[in-house]
């Protein structure tokens, strides 16, 4: 919104105060994640567990082990919290929230509210909110807190010196067991001129101080789609380039198509089946050359954001010395128990998993911890892993896709509920999307589900629970869902399934019984 003049003056007067507060926030954050002057503790004799990497997987493992009485060292070369806290989920979801607010303001009339008129976006305010929230969340995993829990936190780069030892900051740590949880980093496409032209990744985009007027997003996966939409809603003129036929490859076609429609409605220029061939700098602008089949074009922009995937952090760990097999693209090789080729060393999280999510890192770390320290035999393959892309609407999935079931010879029936049939979605003006529940044909066994809804990330958990605990769709129909909620879609799905079981014979018998009971009961 445009401020009145007097408020603008006030804004100028309080600017130094805001900057000072920003500095305080940043200082508090750094104190939590990588304090200046931190002195690594003197190594214990032999650790039960040395964890390399203090991201979601490393933190879960280290804290879990320490809580159970293990002697634990946790090594981190960057910031405690890993990608998720520092350059991943936390800042991106914070920015998405701000962007969604602006989108809602522009659509105010759709919600029966007055149109606020011209909307001025304050990008710096949005970025400060990111820093503030990041600092707040960093408290729960601060280095001080970890130390108080009995964990030896060592800052510095780790390097194996043998099958049972690792060196950090010139000190050797000996271990009975180790866990590699070094995560992953943005993959950079091999595009001519890109380095010279300059680009952003998730590791740098949240450091922006000015909103790019024209933004080219390369990659139509979750990161690319989420940030393309967020920056568009904040006011950037966004073009998204995807070298495949649809966004979110591997996701259900209908979900990906709905997302395309949604991004287009936001005003994003969509280039599917298009490759990013080269980049160059021209004055203050960047020029990107694109090709779609036989059509070549160029785009002028102010910033290029790359989101084409993630590469595991396996370099400089001297894994050879530890006898740990790895691949620079696939990451560390692990078996179903998350054990590497050195049976004393385990891996968890992005460095070894196909599904690179915070919650998968967390779940895999719990498995690795139990298997490493308590002779556990927990399997990675036993996990039911949901995921969500936090666009608007969100796209969430758990379990099997139909194509995966078909490939295994399993016939599928899908129950589809449209969000426009769910009362709460209608009252909230959030009718776009669907819930699809994939059942083993002829049964109510849930094998998978895909959801497109504004809060699909929240809703998917119901189905994850059902799959994990072996609950069928009929069991879900017996769960009373609070009305009105968008999760009522599950009850509707269960009702739809129950109706398919009403065969002609059953209907006939029921009708006869009711006719008879009218005269006799």
């Amino acid at each position, binding site marked *: 919104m445009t401020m009145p003049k007097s408020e603008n003056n006030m804004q100028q007067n309080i600017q130094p105060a805001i900057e000072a507060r920003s500095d305080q926030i940043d200082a508090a954050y750094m104190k939590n994640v990588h304090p200046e002057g931190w002195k690594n503790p003197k190594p214990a004799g032999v650790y039960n567990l040395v964890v390399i990497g203090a991201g979601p997987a490393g933190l879960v493992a280290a804290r879990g082990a320490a809580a159970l009485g293990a002697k634990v060292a946790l090594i981190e070369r960057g910031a405690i919290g890993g990608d998720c806290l520092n350059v991943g989920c936390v800042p991106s979801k914070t920015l998405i929230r701000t962007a969604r607010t602006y989108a809602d303001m522009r*659509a105010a*009339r*759709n919600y*029966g509210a007055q149109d606020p008129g011209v909307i001025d976006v304050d990008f710096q305010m949005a970025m400060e909110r990111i820093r503030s929230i990041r600092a707040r969340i960093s408290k729960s995993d601060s280095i001080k807190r970890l130390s108080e829990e009995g964990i030896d936190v060592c800052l510095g780069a780790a390097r194996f010196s043998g099958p049972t030892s690792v060196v950090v900051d010139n000190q050797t740590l000996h271990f009975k067991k180790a866990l590699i949880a070094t995560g992953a980093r943005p993959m950079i496409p091999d595009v001519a001129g890109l380095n010279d032209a300059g680009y952003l990744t998730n590791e740098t985009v949240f450091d922006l101080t000015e909103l790019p007027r024209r933004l080219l997003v390369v990659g139509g996966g979750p990161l690319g789609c989420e940030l393309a939409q967020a920056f568009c809603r904040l006011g950037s003129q966004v073009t998204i380039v995807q070298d*495949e*036929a*649809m966004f979110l490859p591997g996701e259900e*076609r*209908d979900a990906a*198509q*709905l997302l395309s*429609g949604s991004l*287009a*409605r936001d005003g994003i220029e969509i280039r599917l*089946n298009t490759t990013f061939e080269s980049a160059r700098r021209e004055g203050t602008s960047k020029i990107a050359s694109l090709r779609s*089949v*036989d059509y070549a074009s160029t785009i002028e922009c102010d910033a290029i954001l790359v989101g084409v995937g993630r590469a595991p952090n396996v370099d400089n760990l001297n894994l050879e010395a530890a006898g740990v097999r790895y691949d620079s693209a696939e990451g560390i090789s692990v078996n179903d128990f998350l054990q590497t080729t050195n049976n004393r060393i385990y891996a968890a999280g992005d460095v070894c998993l196909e599904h690179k999510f915070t919650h998968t890192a967390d779940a895999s770390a719990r498995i690795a911890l139990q298997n490493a320290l308590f002779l556990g035999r927990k399997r990675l393959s036993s996990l039911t892993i949901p995921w969500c892309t936090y666009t608007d609407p969100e796209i969430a999935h758990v379990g099997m896709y*139909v*194509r995966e079931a*078909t*490939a295994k010879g399993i*016939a*599928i*029936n*899908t*129950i*589809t509920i*449209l969000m*426009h*049939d769910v009362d709460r979605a209608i009252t909230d003006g959030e*009718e776009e999307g*669907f819930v*699809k529940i994939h059942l083993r*044909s002829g049964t109510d066994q849930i094998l998978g589900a895909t959801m497109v809804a504004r809060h699909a990330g929240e809703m998917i958990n119901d189905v994850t629970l059902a799959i994990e605990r072996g609950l069928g769709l009929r069991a879900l129909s017996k769960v009373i869902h609070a009305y009105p909620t968008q999760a009522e879609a599950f009850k509707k799905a269960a009702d*739809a*399934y129950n*109706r*398919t079981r009403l065969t002609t014979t059953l209907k006939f018998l029921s009708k006869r019984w009711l006719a008879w009971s009218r005269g006799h009961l």
Partner: protein
Amino acid sequence: MKNLEPSDEDLLERFQRAAFNYFMEHANDENGLVADKSTQGAPASIAAVGFGLSGYPIGVERGWLTRDAAAKRTLATLQFFWNSEQSEDPFATGYKGFFYHFLDMKSGKRVWQSELSMIDTALLLAGILVVGTYFDQDGANEREIRHLADAIYARVDWQWARGGQATLRQGWKPEAGFLHYGWEGYSEAIILYVLGLASPSHPITDDCYEGWTSTYQWENIYGQEFLYAGPLFIHHFSHAWIDFAEIQDPFMREKNCDYFENTRRATFVQQEYARRNPYGYEGYGENCWGFSAGEGPGYKNIRIGSKTRQFFGYTARGVPFGPDDGTICPSAMLSSLPFAPDITLAALRHLSSHYPQVIANHALPSGFNPTFQSIDPTGLVTEGRLGLDQGITLLMIENFRSGLIWKLMRQCPTIANGLSRAGFAGGWLK
């Protein structure tokens, strides 16, 4: 055909005749090419030619065209396709037996840098098989028609069209090779696979069809269990030539259904979507539905009331997942006649009584959009008519009235062989 009111019979006759006339008015008599669209300067669409060829026997049987005239038009068409250039030259008419999607109406050469289209070639070939079956008499023209029909079909290299993949590719360009459009899920392509499987010279293997059907998704939407596809034309195009009633492939056997019944259910889903009208478009209702590929008001975002409406130009509209911009495709609605006659006739009567501008001279436009009309009183009806719309209307009304095309194709060994190789059995295939 069910018993019709005289007024309904009259209505169908008028719409069918108007659709037939498109192929008389927008074809080049010398080479048989049919314009993609009625607007001035439109190129030919090979699929529209396939519909046109299929329509000539209808014209003969209905007394709208003499058999001799139909044979001459047909022969000119087949001679053009047999003799036109087949090469990698970007201005050829075709390659590997397939043809480019759009051709110059006069020269017959590729235009618009269009793709060598597998599905549009299949629709053309379906028409060629119709005339190859229908013209069964002993005159010189009819003999040559049969000879050329066999030759054009046998020339197609279906195996090449897999592009080294498990399933058939959607298109190819001399400048870029095979296209990668992610052509998955149920589509209008059954006719394509049936023709590819039955080829006497370059057939695809049986696993190719299985590979395609493995991408199907069987869904329960609005209480209808069916093989999902959003746009209605997908549920019609292969059915224009093949009577799928009571014949089943392995997928449909497992679901205890058939593709004819599936299209009936898809039609009811369309009707139900319009009845629910979740996005509040003008005009939608139980007698006003039909969401398919076609023209629209054009690409623009316009605020109407409290909502910003997004309108499209030519796009494949579908339900229930969209895209939907308030545009109804009347030919798609009418083409459901054989599958769901009661609701289709009710919708046709509604169209006739409520939208006289749409049915002027009974020549159906590609689309009409009452929501757009609310901001532009002259913008109800989309510009021009599409050959595909006219073709599917012509064939489906005939299939409803007499079953002529279905009967002809039942007699065509290519269709029966292809269906059998795809695993179809039962019904008329016994």
